[in-house]
């Protein structure tokens, strides 16, 4: 690959490398402004949003293409002082942990636009401009390396979500939006306080410096406990972790599909790994047993409730609780293999959830209801929808050679061998339950004789735009199931065991490149 660019000069490439993350942040924002300024005519907002998100996605693809896999630490880093005192910097960068999450966010953006294409008919300017703002904030969350900057993006990401849920809800949007906002906004306040307290202690918002300082200085244990807890609570609600999942069922039930597919999971799970486990290894170890228990309960609880939902978006919500809890289990199992599996599973679930939202949204658009009982026998009328749905369902179930299996197997096996056999066995029961609720859903929607509702509408199978959105997702499920090494190669460079001792590379110039090879898996 290198030789292609030698002739043109390395400088051009480095220039792009040095500004790519800024571009990724600014392009959706520019698109949002453009949508807001131009008139809402002839699907103009749709096209601008689609083009913007496609360009952004292509920009995000630059990252894995030029990511140097055997170089630990952050790459494509930009670190410019922004506000001198307190020292807030525009510090962004990606490592193996965030790399693919940025790409996933980029991929799901055009998918979301295509899924909204016909679903959003009114106030398109508001919808698409907020949607694009939302993209910027999510990218920001994944790449920000300054805690204040991160907090700004984190907080800002809640606003467009809440507004879009309120405006475009199916039945009672404002109520669901209020619930979502309260659940996610309230724990953010302690997070801000905690970040400010850390600043007061260390005089820095910089993630790498802070991680280094927290590992090497001693701070009051009681205060650190509460600070870590404030971080954890904010993230746990956003995942959501049992029993903090109260918002997710209503949000999934009401949110427009483009929002629903990004609202849960990856932001919170990433933040846990980066900022809770990453900054507070000692406090993490303290609270890990509780988190493991909650995670396993969440796996089973979510699956059981998914079994008895009558609304398919709510079913999806509880399935999400179950799947994200499994990732939480891997994160707090504190094994390297588990963390690799966790990152992989975030990607896999993100893709599957995206596909599921597109498919169920397509059904909702055609038949005007989310009540499972009204459906039936659709496979004969909408064969393509049925095929895509079954593949996505099988991925969710964790069928081998599809992406879901790799993550689940790595997580469960590392939990079994490295953490706790009992919890691993309990969590593995979710394997049976996920098959039960997903296959039952498939049957009730697509098999059996055609329902009155199914016969009452003209059979319109997936349209071109929907196929364009879904096909890459389905192909990814296959490729990620067969060749996970393509992803693990880079993910591996991003997950380190947390530094534990004072000697851990104290003489290194850049704290972010500290070789964190202290904790070896299996030494529990």
């Amino acid at each position, binding site marked *: 690959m290198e030789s292609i660019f030698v002739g043109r000069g390395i400088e051009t490439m480095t220039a792009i490398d040095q500004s790519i993350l800024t571009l990724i942040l600014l392009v959706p924002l520019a698109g949002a402004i453009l949508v807001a300024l131009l008139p809402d005519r002839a699907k103009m907002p749709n096209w601008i949003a689609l083009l913007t998100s496609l360009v952004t996605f292509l920009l995000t693809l630059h990252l894995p293409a030029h990511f140097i896999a055997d170089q630990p630490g952050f790459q494509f880093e930009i670190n410019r002082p922004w506000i001198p005192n307190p020292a807030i910097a525009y510090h962004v960068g990606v490592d193996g942990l965030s790399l693919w999450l940025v790409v996933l966010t980029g991929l799901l953006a055009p998918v979301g636009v295509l899924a909204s294409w016909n679903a959003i008919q009114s106030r398109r300017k508001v919808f698409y401009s907020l949607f694009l703002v939302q993209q910027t904030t999510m990218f920001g969350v994944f790449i920000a390396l300054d805690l204040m900057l991160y907090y700004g993006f984190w907080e800002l990401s809640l606003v467009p979500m*809440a507004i879009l849920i309120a405006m475009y809800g199916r039945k009672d949007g404002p109520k669901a939006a209020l619930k979502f906002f309260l659940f996610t906004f309230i724990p953010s306040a302690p997070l801000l306080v905690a970040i400010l307290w850390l600043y*007061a202690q260390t005089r820095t918002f910089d993630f790498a410096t802070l991680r280094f300082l927290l590992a090497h200085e001693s701070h009051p244990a009681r205060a650190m406990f509460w600070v870590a807890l404030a971080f954890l609570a904010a993230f746990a609600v956003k995942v959501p972790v049992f029993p903090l999942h109260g918002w997710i069922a209503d949000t999934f039930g009401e949110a427009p599909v483009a929002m629903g597919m990004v609202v849960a999971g990856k932001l919170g799970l990433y933040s846990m790994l980066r900022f809770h486990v990453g900054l507070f290894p000692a406090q993490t170890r303290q609270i890990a047993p509780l988190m493991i228990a909650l995670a396993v309960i969440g796996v089973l609880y979510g699956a059981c409730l998914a079994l008895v939902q009558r609304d398919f978006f709510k079913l999806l919500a509880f399935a999400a609780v179950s799947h994200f809890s499994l990732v939480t289990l891997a994160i707090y199992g504190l094994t390297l293999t588990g963390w690799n599996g966790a990152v992989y599973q975030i990607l896999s679930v993100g893709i599957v959830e995206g596909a599921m939202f597109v498919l169920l949204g397509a059904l909702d658009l055609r038949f005007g209801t989310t009540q499972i009982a009204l459906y039936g026998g659709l496979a004969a009328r909408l064969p393509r929808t049925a095929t895509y749905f079954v593949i996505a369902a099988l991925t969710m179930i964790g069928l*081998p050679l599809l992406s879901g299996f790799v993550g689940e197997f790595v997580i469960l*096996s590392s939990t*079994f061998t490295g953490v706790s056999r009992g919890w691993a066995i309990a969590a593995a029961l979710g394997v049976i339950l996920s*098959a039960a609720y997903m*296959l039952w859903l498939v049957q009730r929607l697509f098999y*059996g004789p055609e329902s009155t509702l199914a016969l009452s509408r003209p059979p319109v199978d997936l349209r071109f735009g929907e196929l364009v959105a879904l096909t890459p997702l389905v192909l990814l499920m296959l490729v990620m199931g067969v060749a996970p090494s393509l992803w693990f190669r880079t993910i591996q460079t991003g997950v380190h065991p947390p530094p534990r001792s004072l000697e851990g590379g104290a003489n290194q110039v850049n704290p972010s490149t500290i070789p964190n090879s202290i904790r070896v898996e299996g030494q529990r």
Partner: protein
Amino acid sequence: MNAPSNTQLGLWLIPLLPFAGFLINGILGSRLPRWIVTMVALLTPLCSFAIVLSAARTFFGIAPALPAQSYTETFGQPWISIGNLHIDFSLTLDQLSLVMLLIITGVGFLIHIYSVGYMHADKGYARYFSYLNLFLFFMTTLVLAGNVLLMFVGWEGVGLASYLLIGFWFQKNSAADAGKKAFIANRVGDFGFLIGIFLLLANFGTLTFSEIAAKLTQNPDWAGGVLTVICLCLLFGAAGKSAQLPLYVWLPDAMEGPTPVSALIHAATMVTAGVYMIVRTHFLFDRSPFALGVVAIVGAATALFAATLGLVQNDIKRVLAYSTISQLGYMFLGCGVAAYSAAIFHLMTHAFFKALLFLAAGSVIHAMGDEQDMRKMGGLWNKIPVTFWTMTAAVIAICGIWPFAGFFSKDAILYAAFLQGTGGKVLWFVGLVTALLTALYMFRLWYMTFLGKPRTHDAHPHESPWSMLGPLVILALLSICGGWIGIERFGSFLAPVVGTYSMESPIPHLEIILSIAAVAVALLGWLIADRFYRQRPEKPAQLAAAFAGPYKLLTHKYYVDELYNAVFVKGLLSISRYVLGWIVEGAILGGAAWLLGGIATFSGAILQRWQSGNLRSYAAWLAAGAAVILFFAVMPWLLGAHGIDLRWTGH
């Protein structure tokens, strides 16, 4: 262990060719002309079969002096490789997988041909063949897998193919239900398998069969303990896939699928995967006499249990389904007494005669115009003679009457059981009783279907086309001659993989005595069937009336489905709905959230304006939200600019 590594036999083509067939017919099938669909569907398994044959020739031609060799090909990059977890796409060919491959691709190809005739009028023709090819992909992967996880890939994959094919006529609720039931029952078993895999990983640090075996060889004293637990987990998985007690419930319902599917997947190949798995991991079971005992008991109990149920079924396919469960029980019994080659021998002959039974039953159903109830059949023997004579061969074979194939293999298992002490003699006796029942229900089927007078005059039976009869004839020849190779030669062929077991008997001529006993019992079963279903057809009804209680128990299949439904399905659903859904989610967590929301709404009545629904108020909210963010973003700077220090704690 390994053959010269420069010989590339192209093992990966064996699964990938059917996979290509699946892709072509699955994606393009509905738009392709039918003859192309047929050619793709037939040629891919045929090519695989040819490769298996040529691989066998090359493999055993290189160094026949080295009987212990196996040949491994690793395909492409490692599949999963993180930390100490390292799993390859490695395929292993040895005597055991060779026998399995010959059965799978050979019998599989015959059933593909048969399907061309059987499914010719179905509008899902291309979909059917794509699923069938998908099944072959996963099944060949399962038997070629060089490590446990790759085997698990095939294992779950054949479950998927089975799910899709049982529910092939998905517009029938019963078919969709049966498919789902099969998948979930298999998943329950797979849960055990998965735990077994974790235990293997934890104790051996590898999932490669040869490395596990090597580690066991290095530790000759290691027995029982965790190995027993591993074996029981694997057995649980095997019981799911091979429809053994207590997980057999899905197989009778699986008869909802097209009949060739029942022949291929639910008789000849997929359901034997559990037997194959135990034999493949026999080095583990050999170290745990307890686990082996459990395998034997599960097998014998299932054999007898299913045979009793076969006695009272009136659906021709369901009789065969219970007989499959029962015969799989024999194979488990063979495994349990460590007579692995006998189990695989029976697996092979069973593949021949049971595939034949199903295909012939399909031909009967075809002739009767989709009628499966044997009470409406009768007198078919001269109307569909080829079907009749081939089916007769299969019936005699399954009853174990000399010199048909089933005699040799079943005899080998029963003889091996008899040699295993007192417990073994009990198991042998159970097997003998099962043989009696087998002959009884099989000849019952035979009489009700083919002999006597036609019981309905609506149907106009007609013989099936030769695309269906051809496979019947070939399978009939195999059902007759398939056992003539004999257990000694078959066993010594498999010995490099599965080892040998003692066939020395303390009593002279014991084997012949036992053989005569088994054949006599089978003939007795035939005589009873002859008396009940030919000479005195009123007798069965009288018996049923005389033993009303046991008869009801049998026709209701011991109420196991009802029990499972009440305990597991209903139990899980009610706990989920009422305890978790209403109490935990609704009352406790919902109440807490309601309180939180109430406080917030009260303190911020302005939030109510959200519900006003007009654009201006949303815009105002957007602005307010942005202002909040801006405030948070610049607050530290503002504070700093005014000289307010954030150093609160005084450090």
